[in-house]
């Protein structure tokens, strides 16, 4: 019986080829779009987390409690004194660490060699040219000039900020900031390098100076606002335990995981994921309404046929199965097309990607993706989309079929 019903269902679908195709295409569009967007978002998340780790957060950071409590205003005065001692303890425990200073400042440029006078507020980052490499990959992204040398008044800039200022290697730059004691400090430095990192935040805002030089300028010898740590993320608990043991005797200090450092990013990424899911839900609802409508039309157009089948003694359960199989087949056809569409979309994303760098230079969208948005192959999504497509098609056909079967046989035959 099931074989016969399946054959009849297939023949009915072929009878209305155009309608079947249009409905299947609606499902295919929904599934294809879902696979593509999901692939792009997952890739963006992966790349963002990698870039955050490689350029902004490391595996985690140690700051003073006071600094963390008011970190939004970058309170440089709440720095870690004698950071070298802490760095040595971390090194003894087998942990890679790099000190950094973050401070607010104003970057000033003057006409000649710059086209016009100008200034902008920036966050200065003091880095230890030797130790920084153990945690971050900044040095590897140098696109022009050279990296920083200790104790020299020199600066490297992110590529987009350099482009905005029309700065180049060898250009002078003036930075005005405040020492930890609150005195104004002016730094005359030279641009020695430009970095082009895969992390847009670095390209957009990166202003790096040698740590020792900045310590001297800010009157905080051996001080650092942050000590970033890099460890193998497969062993997070063990490494965090080691860090906390080191900090036991230093109650003023506190360790924060990369997730805490990247709270803003994670919140934005989560919100984007929800927003995108909502849009995709709408796409699926539209596809579902399409299938429901197709099935409603199928039921009403074939009401007399339905009456005849019932008059011949076909049970309602078999008639329901007939329509459910038809809907399921539409769902499967749509899902097959959708997955093919998704694979094509994915292929383009994985191979070429969408280049949004023109927009990302000035706008922070949260994701740490600097150039093209790529995709990843996600077989699980494809398989689940395939089944979801088929199941949704069957589920939304329940209502029209039940409605059709509510009519008496005589009413059906009269249609």
């Amino acid at each position, binding site marked *: *019986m099931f074989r*016969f019903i399946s054959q*009849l269902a297939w*023949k*009915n679908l*072929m*009878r209305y080829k155009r309608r079947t195709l249009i409905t299947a295409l609606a499902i295919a569009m929904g599934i294809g779009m879902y696979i593509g967007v999901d692939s792009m978002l997952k890739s963006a998340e992966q790349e963002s987390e990698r870039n955050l780790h490689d350029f902004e957060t490391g595996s985690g950071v140690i700051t003073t409690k006071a600094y963390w409590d008011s970190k939004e205003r970058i309170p440089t005065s709440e720095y870690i004194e004698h950071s070298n001692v802490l760095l040595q303890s971390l090194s003894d425990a087998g942990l890679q660490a790099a000190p950094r200073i973050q401070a607010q400042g104003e970057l000033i440029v003057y006409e000649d060699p710059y086209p016009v006078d100008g200034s902008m507020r920036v966050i200065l980052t003091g880095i230890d040219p030797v130790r920084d490499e153990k945690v971050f990959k900044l040095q590897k992204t140098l696109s022009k000039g050279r990296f920083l040398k200790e104790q020299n008044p020199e600066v490297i800039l992110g590529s987009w900020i350099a482009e905005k200022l029309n700065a180049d290697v060898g250009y002078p730059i003036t930075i005005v900031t405040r020492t930890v004691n609150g005195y104004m400090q002016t730094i005359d430095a030279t641009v020695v390098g430009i970095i082009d990192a895969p992390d847009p935040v670095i390209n957009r805002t990166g202003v790096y100076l040698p740590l020792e030089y900045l310590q001297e300028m800010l009157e905080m010898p051996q001080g650092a606002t942050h000590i970033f740590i890099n460890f193998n993320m497969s062993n997070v608990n063990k490494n965090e335990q080691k860090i906390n043991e080191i900090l036991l005797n230093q109650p003023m200090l506190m360790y924060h995981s990369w997730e805490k450092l990247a709270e803003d990013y994670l919140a934005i990424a989560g919100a984007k994921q929800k927003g995108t899911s909502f849009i995709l839900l709408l796409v699926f609802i539209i596809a579902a309404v399409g299938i429901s409508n197709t099935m409603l039309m199928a039921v009403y157009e074939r009401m*007399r*046929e339905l*009456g*005849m*089948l*019932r*008059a*011949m*003694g*076909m*049970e*309602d359960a078999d008639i329901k199965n007939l329509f459910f199989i038809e809907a399921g087949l539409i769902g499967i056809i749509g899902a097959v097309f959708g997955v093919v569409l998704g694979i094509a979309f994915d292929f383009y994303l994985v191979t070429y990607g969408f280049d949004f760098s023109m927009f990302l230079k000035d706008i922070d969208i949260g994701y740490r993706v600097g150039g093209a948005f790529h995709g990843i192959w996600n077989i699980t999504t494809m398989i689940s989309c395939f089944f979801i497509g088929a199941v949704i098609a069957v589920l939304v056909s329940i209502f029209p079929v039940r409605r059709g079967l509510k009519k*008496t*046989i*005589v009413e059906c*035959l009269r249609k």
Partner: protein
Amino acid sequence: MITIDALVKTYREGESEVHALRGVSLEIKPGEFTAIAGPSGSGKTTLLNIIGLLDDADSGKILIDGRDIQTFSGKERARFRREKLGFVFQTFNLIPVLTAYENVALALNLLQISAKEIESRTLAILHEVGLKGAENRLPSKLSGGQQQRVAIARALVKKPLLVLADEPTANLDSVTGEEIMKLMLELNKKHGTTFIFSTHDPMVMQYATRLIKLHDGLIVSDERR
């Protein structure tokens, strides 16, 4: 075989009531070739629908083969129709995506008998109704007369107790209609299957071995020939 006693059926049409059957009683013996005749609205289709378990009477009793069909559950009714009854409608009601062969085999598919038996019985009945060579044609490729032959074959292939035909020639020209009546009578004689058909066509009535006339939901004459 069929005993009907004081059958009443009333429909509501908006505010008014239509008395389709107003106490119909009759008996039909096995093998009879009975015409239910009468003008439109006389209640003949309603009577056929109730006998065919497609509709319910408001009151009265109806026994088929000694069984009170009004006590049947939905499943029992479907099973009874599947196994014991054959239907022929004026609009043929063939499944458009199935060939002549498949339309006839459908009745046997529902009975879940072996594929071999389905094939032999389907081909035999199709040949018997004169459709040899047209087995693989879709309904759209058949004439009206041929379509009604497929419908008759579909009704008879399961060897039913009773075939109910609601105005079987109404959509056919007079020549084809007469051919269909001759075929039905021939099959009735050959297989001994009981036929009850409704009509208002005098040509069709002349083929009946029993003619029951209805008017306004009541039997006005019952003549055996």
